[in-house]
């Protein structure tokens, strides 16, 4: 009962977008699909949707090749925000739901319910062009889920949302998960991913660099981190990095995180800090954050612009899709 990405390879001209990518997504979970720009996340999602055909490999959902599944299996929230500018919000939502086979009246009713949940019921009869970016994002999310798909693929779903809307979206995620739906999303906001995901896959240049339960990945990293807060010492004093056994110092919220060397002992570190005369208000040995894990595995932050794949697609163009192979109009 999983989504299996099985040795999928995809090239655009000379550029390899996916290089034998393999991982599983457990059904009924919120899954983080992480990687820097150009890592192959969007291409993988497009292959899932049948928009792009892989050069080799296969993607299965519950044991069935995705090309054999009906479109309504999937919901898709693309990274780019796009709605028909002159069409009203409600008409737009009903239109997309109809394309997925949802009866019009039911789609209308459910669309109004979701608009209320996202606190924009008054926008139902407004044109999309009149909405703010964040509200357009919420409408687009509703468009992706209105037909109640089994799997929801989302490319950067949190972009453009303020903290309140972010919470609303997270609540929606959790509700859909509790209803047995599988949610897969890519994001550069690793804190958000850490808060919501039970499992993740981290990809780099089309290859999987780590995947599985987030908890297991953190444990498997073998690295220790200390969360530290010193009274009256913001920012953290430079001497922390010079302590024996400390490899790296990072700011984290109001405090500081120390990455320890493999053989370092936390009590010895605490003693060394106290010996410097500092007043410690928090000292905790913690697992590495997802962000720390990501940087350790990929070697650069998630939001690094690579642009290699984007330019490759522009030069080579996508190959004809599987959907296009269904004959003449």
């Amino acid at each position, binding site marked *: 009962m999983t989504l299996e990405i099985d040795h999928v390879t995809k090239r655009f001209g000379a550029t390899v977008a996916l290089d034998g990518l393999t991982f599983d997504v457990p059904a009924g979970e919120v899954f983080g699909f992480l990687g820097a720009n150009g890592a192959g996340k969007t291409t993988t999602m497009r292959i899932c949707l049948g928009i792009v055909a892989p050069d080799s490999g296969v993607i299965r959902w519950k044991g069935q090749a*995705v090309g054999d599944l009906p*479109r309504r299996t999937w919901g898709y929230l693309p990274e780019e925000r*796009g709605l028909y500018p002159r069409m009203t919000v409600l008409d737009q939502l009903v239109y997309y739901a109809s394309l997925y086979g949802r009866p019009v009246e039911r789609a209308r009713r459910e669309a109004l319910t979701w608009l209320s949940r996202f606190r924009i019921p008054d926008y139902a009869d407004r044109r999309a062009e009149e909405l703010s970016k964040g509200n357009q994002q919420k409408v687009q999310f509703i468009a992706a889920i209105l037909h109640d798909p089994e799997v929801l693929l989302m490319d950067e779903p949190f972009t453009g949302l303020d903290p309140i809307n972010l919470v609303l979206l997270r609540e929606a995620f959790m509700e859909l998960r509790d209803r047995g739906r599988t949610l897969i999303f890519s994001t550069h906001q690793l804190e958000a991913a850490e808060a919501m995901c039970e499992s993740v896959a981290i990809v780099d240049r089309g290859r999987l660099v780590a995947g599985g339960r987030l908890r297991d990945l953190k444990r498997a990293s073998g690295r220790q981190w200390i969360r530290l807060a010193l009274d009256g010492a913001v920012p953290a004093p430079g001497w922390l990095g010079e302590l024996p056994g400390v490899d790296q110092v990072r700011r984290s919220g109001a405090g500081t995180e120390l990455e320890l060397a493999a053989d370092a002992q936390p009590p010895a570190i605490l003693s060394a800090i106290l010996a410097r005369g500092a007043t410690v208000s928090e000292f905790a040995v913690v697992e590495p954050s997802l962000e720390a894990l990501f940087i350790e595995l990929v070697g650069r932050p998630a939001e690094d612009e690579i642009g290699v794949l984007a330019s490759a*697609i522009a030069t080579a*163009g*996508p190959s*004809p899709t599987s959907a*296009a*192979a269904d004959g*003449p109009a």
Partner: protein
Amino acid sequence: MARHDPLLPNAAIIARREYRDRIRGPLFLASTVVLMALALIVAMAPIAIRYFDRQTVTRLAIVSSDPELAERAVGVADSLLNVPPDGADLETWKKPFVITISDPDSAGRDLARGQIYGILGVERLPSRQLDVVFRTSGPPDGVRSQLVGFAAIAMGVLDWTAGLPPDSQLGAFQTPAFRVEPINTATDNGRALDPQETASRAFLGIVFVVLLFMTVVIYGMWVAAGVAAEKSSRVMELMISAASPRQMLTGKVVGIGAAGLTQYLAIVLPALVVLAFQSRIAEAILGPDWAAGAPIVGLTPVLLLGYGIFFLLGFTLFALIYAAMGSFVSRPDDLQTLSLPLSLLAVLGYLSAIGALSGGGGTWTRIASFLPPFSPFVMLARMMVAAVQPWEVALSIGLLVAAIAAAAVVASRMYAAGVLLYGTRPGLRAFLAAARRAG
């Protein structure tokens, strides 16, 4: 990985949205009203042409130093130029040419003021040969000038017979009756159209071809612009997960085509009403002689049906290719560049049709009337002014349908490749590369 999505119901849902989006636009309403008025003018055009023909009198002045020669010239010119149409009542019929004798100075002044169309100078040379000069403000090779040329020859023959001895066996000169019987002209209920009727048809044909060209290119560009707008606004990102390229392409072409058809019907229906009452309107305006003596040939149901069929097929063919082109641009601004070759093809079809309507073209006209994408324009033009066999129309339509089927296969695959293509500059090279991949 192949997913075989049925065409329906998604193509119909997309077509409905496209249709509503078009017909609710203010531009659609405005253009429909303008074209409706134009169609009414066209429907009335044959009557108007006859009305002005009836009102038009061409004045000629005969100038000669020999009064007898001048009188003879008036008689010959009158018998050649003023031939009443079949069935006309000679008591009420007005001569189209008024021919009078004048002196050189007065005639010159009248010609300069535009009060007369020309001066026919007839003099006898010392060699006894007649010297005929026609000074005119009209074109030197116009129909009237040619008729005057015939009159000059007739004057020469008459002058020669007048100089024969009284016991000559030759009878008096009779001006020959002259008429043209073209074998390749359009018919109306089996009767070949006369030159005036053919000219009327040619005028209507030009209007039809212009309308066809405008509608095919404009509606085709609507399709391309719609696709390009979906790409630039990124709506395509959502659409491609909800519907297959084949469904999207079909829905767009059908929806916009239906909007075009709606406009076509809105234009044609008032014109049909005029057509239904054409005889009565003509009788009221022109009087019974002109209306009955020379049947008005304008819009007929067959021609309107022909226009409808060639509009639908022509639009479908062009729209499929326009949609494929629209899928290759990221910004609507780039569309003009990429669609230029296709627009030029439409222009070539249009010019060929205009050539056919003016009686030119020959072999190319015949070939082009069967050859997509020119055939919608050229076959329609041939139907207006030339004798076209039913099998020729059927063959032209059949080839057009076959071309549409082939274009649909290629266009849907190119569309599928193009809709995801962002960031690249549109060009013929990218287009042909995608066409090769699609093939």
